[in-house]
């Protein structure tokens, strides 16, 4: 890659589509649940585009878009409108998509992230709002299918499009950008970040230009990348492919290519020579929107702490390295898991190490998110306490964590670890018992005189000396033995 990188400069811009987490659709009252509902159950005249139906704007979806735009440092114009994007396709029931063309809700923002510790900034061209389409189901392969079915449950689900400037210079940068963007969307609660089910989708515009040139080369749009890994692999593949074309004296064509994850390559889908003319024009069924400054400030005030700010705070408040802080804040649930563990008394550095180390390794292997695990901050904190008090070796702790992770309830494994860290051997406890008898003559006398209460006090003293690790049943037995 490095040889390529010196000859050509890689230029990548990303278009991310994120479904907005609202209860109802963009322009009607239908539920946005399209993943579990039976086909076409969540539809009505509006999202089916029946004659005479009219759209009504979902204010919450607009709010989520402005929220996103503010989190991405965008300007929010006072005047905005919806437009129609006209094209024919069976999953598009009106024959046009209500989208935003020249007056989107926001423009000119940026996103900061870092690649292996080096800071990067990518410009955000715009964040706009549109409606999703239905979904086609082909009977067999698309080119041979004898029939296709349409499910309109997804039709009209609010969809944000986040368009970046062509500021990204490598597959690494592109992947980091999307990871950071996803974290922000999750942080502010506008999207669940699920790429596999298509609730977060990413298209990449990839081009090469001679190093040092400021003109943009012929761009290729890459679609169908369903994971961070796919984004990275697809862009790497395109860079190699385009380099080979250019090096062999060929010319690149402006086209759309689909990423085939199984084969690890991109395949041409359509060329842009016959560019589609979407005939955008202002949506006459929706009046333009005045976005009041008061509303924007209200939305801004409601923004939670964003990853960048939280990362800095983690470094300052907990003494974490910027790298660890960056990883911990990459998802909101992980950052919250960490802070809760620390709040319960877990040491910051050790908590971070466990979350980013063993815990993340296990989660990654299972393709799970931290919030899906049965291990909660209290479990981690208790485990760390056992390690800290010296009763649990590092090796034992790892085994315990593994057992906790794989059990539906981590409590028994934790209890077992507590048990195994107890001092139960009579030889070890003998010294403790002798010390307690020597230092508490009065209580010893009281017990001899028949006061059961005094023995409890003596056990308590021994527990204290052992920092809680002595086995109280054995202490009881040994004390009775020695005193009598």
């Amino acid at each position: 890659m490095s040889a390529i990188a010196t000859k050509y400069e890689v230029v990548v811009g990303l278009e991310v589509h994120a479904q907005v987490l609202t209860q109802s659709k963009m322009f009607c009252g239908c539920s946005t649940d399209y993943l579990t509902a039976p086909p076409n159950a969540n539809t009505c005249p509006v999202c089916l585009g029946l004659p005479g139906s009219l759209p009504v704007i979902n204010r919450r979806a607009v709010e989520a878009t402005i929220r996103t735009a503010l989190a991405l440092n965008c300007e929010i114009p006072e005047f905005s409108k919806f437009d129609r994007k006209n094209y024919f396709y069976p999953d598009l029931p009106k024959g046009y998509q209500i989208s935003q063309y020249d007056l989107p809700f926001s423009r000119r923002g940026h996103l900061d992230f870092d690649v292996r510790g080096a800071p990067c900034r990518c410009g955000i061209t715009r964040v706009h709002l549109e409606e999703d389409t239905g979904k086609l189901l082909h009977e067999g392969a698309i080119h041979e299918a004898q029939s296709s079915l349409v499910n309109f449950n997804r039709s009209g689900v609010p969809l944000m499009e986040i368009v970046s400037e062509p500021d990204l210079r490598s597959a690494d940068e592109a992947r980091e950008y999307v990871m950071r963007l996803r974290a922000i969307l999750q942080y502010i609660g506008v999207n669940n970040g699920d790429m596999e089910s298509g609730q977060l989708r990413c298209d990449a515009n990839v081009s090469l230009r001679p190093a040092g040139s400021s003109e943009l080369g012929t761009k290729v749009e890459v679609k169908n990348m369903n994971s961070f890994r796919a984004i990275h692999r697809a862009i790497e593949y395109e860079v190699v492919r385009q380099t080979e074309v250019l090096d062999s004296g060929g010319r690149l064509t402006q086209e759309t290519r689909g990423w085939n994850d199984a084969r690890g390559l991109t395949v041409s889908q359509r060329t842009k020579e016959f560019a589609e003319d979407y005939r955008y024009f202002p949506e006459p069924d929706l009046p333009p929107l005045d976005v009041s400054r008061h509303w924007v400030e209200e939305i801004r005030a409601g923004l939670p702490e964003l990853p960048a700010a939280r990362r800095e705070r983690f470094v300052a408040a907990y003494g974490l390295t910027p790298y660890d802080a960056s990883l911990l804040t990459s998802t909101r649930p992980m950052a919250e898991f960490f802070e809760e563990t620390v709040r319960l008394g877990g040491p910051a550095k050790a908590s971070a190490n466990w979350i980013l180390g063993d815990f993340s390794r296990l989660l990654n292997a299972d393709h799970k998110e931290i919030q899906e695990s049965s291990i909660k901050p209290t479990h981690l904190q208790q485990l760390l306490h056992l390690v800290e008090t010296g009763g649990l070796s590092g090796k034992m702790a790892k085994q315990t964590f593994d057992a906790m992770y794989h059990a539906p309830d981590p409590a028994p494994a934790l209890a077992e670890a507590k048990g195994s860290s107890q001092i139960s051997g009579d030889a070890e406890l003998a010294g403790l018992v002798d010390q307690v008898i020597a230092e508490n003559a009065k209580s010893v006398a009281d017990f001899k005189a028949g006061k059961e209460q005094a023995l409890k006090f003596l056990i308590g003293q021994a527990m204290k000396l052992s920092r809680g690790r002595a086995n109280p049943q054995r202490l009881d037995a040994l004390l009775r033995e020695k005193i009598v």
Partner: protein
Amino acid sequence: MKLFHRTIRDLHQMLRDREISSVELTQSVLDQIQAVGDRTKAYLLVTKELALRQAHAADERLRSKRDVRPMTGIPIALKDVLCVKEVASTAGSKILKGFTPPYSATVVERLEAEGAVFLGKTNCDEFAMGSSNENSGYWPVHNPWGLDRVPGGSSGGSAAAVASGEAIAALGSDTGGSIRQPAALTGIVGLKPTYGRVSRYGLIAFASSLDQIGPMTRDVVDSALLLQAIAGHDPRDSTSSPKPVPDYLATLGDGVKGMRLGVPKEYFVAGMEPAVEQSIRDAIRLLEQQGASIEEVSLPHSDVALPAYYIIAPAEASSNLARYDGVRYGYQAEGARNLIEEYMLTRQQGFGAEVKRRIMLGTYALSSGYYDAYYLQAQKVRTLIIDDFKRAFTKVDALLGATSPTVAFPLGAKTQDPVAMYLNDIITIPANLGNVCAISVPCGLADGLPVGLQVIAPGFREDLALRIAFAFEAATEFHKAQSPLMGAAA
């Protein structure tokens, strides 16, 4: 006089007094449909069973004196562009043949709530595109004043039904004159409300920024009554206005004394028939005699209204009609081998010539590279027309002119010349582009055919338009003239 000859106001009183029942009244109108329907061809569908069921329900309501409204028990006709739940609604197009919407338009729901009786769906130009009703995907409508004449369009079926006694009143829709022009050509009253006054929810769209639903009635009182029943904000139509709806009857009789009425000189267009012009001049003089002061005004951009309209309306239509692709409902062509062919065959066979012409015009106007020159330019012209009206209304209270430059022309006279057909709407179109309201009221006959006087009032001043029209009507007998088809049964 038979029941179907009467007005809403009269019938309401008779129903209230239990002098007649809604079933009797409805049967009277259904009988007239039976008698003359095959001559006017006003209806695409007569919903006899529904009408009689509704009439029975209305009689119950009248009997119990519970929530009796002006429209309770009144049989009315609905233009086929209005969706009625589980009743075939085709917008006069073959591409929607067999389509029965699972929901009703807001205006339909409002009339249902008032206890109105629905006689059926009236014929119209396909997707409301036309000025003669000859563009219906099914059959042309004949003018009750002369069966060889067009009734005007696009709400020609509604107009013919009201003028022939086949309905007491009707709803039409007006995008460039489609209520007023057929009203004028059939001697009835037609009101185009201000854009936003009446909900468009459930109106099969032609041009979304211009379409308005409005009443077509025998007289001005009925127009006020029907408008009252359908006007007002609808949360399902974001372009409907939240402005409160005034009581239109309250000011109807206030007269025109002291009012300033303007006569736009541009509205006496070239090609206006002398007899029409004479009727209009006489009507203006009559209003002057009623105490209004008349002055000539100028709406300087009137001449570019028509071309601007024929960019904006087709542009919106090209997008609105994209959904008729044969995939989900309506007509689907057979024999297509792939998706594109399916689209092409369905639309080739399903749409009529005029609809295709406008889809092509609109698609072209919105195309990349032409948008600025056509669509954007037309929107600028629209702003100039809005300003023309604003300026005029600083000087005068309302404007007067003809509704149509001609009386009803013979069927087939203009079908070969689309531009000649478009010119019918030359003095109705500005009101749609200018966000104002306008009413056409009968002002006499020319060569035995009706002429309509157009009263244009500022936006949301339907009260004013109705008041002026009523003052004119009250001083004349023109609205009492009956078409031969209606009169013959008397």
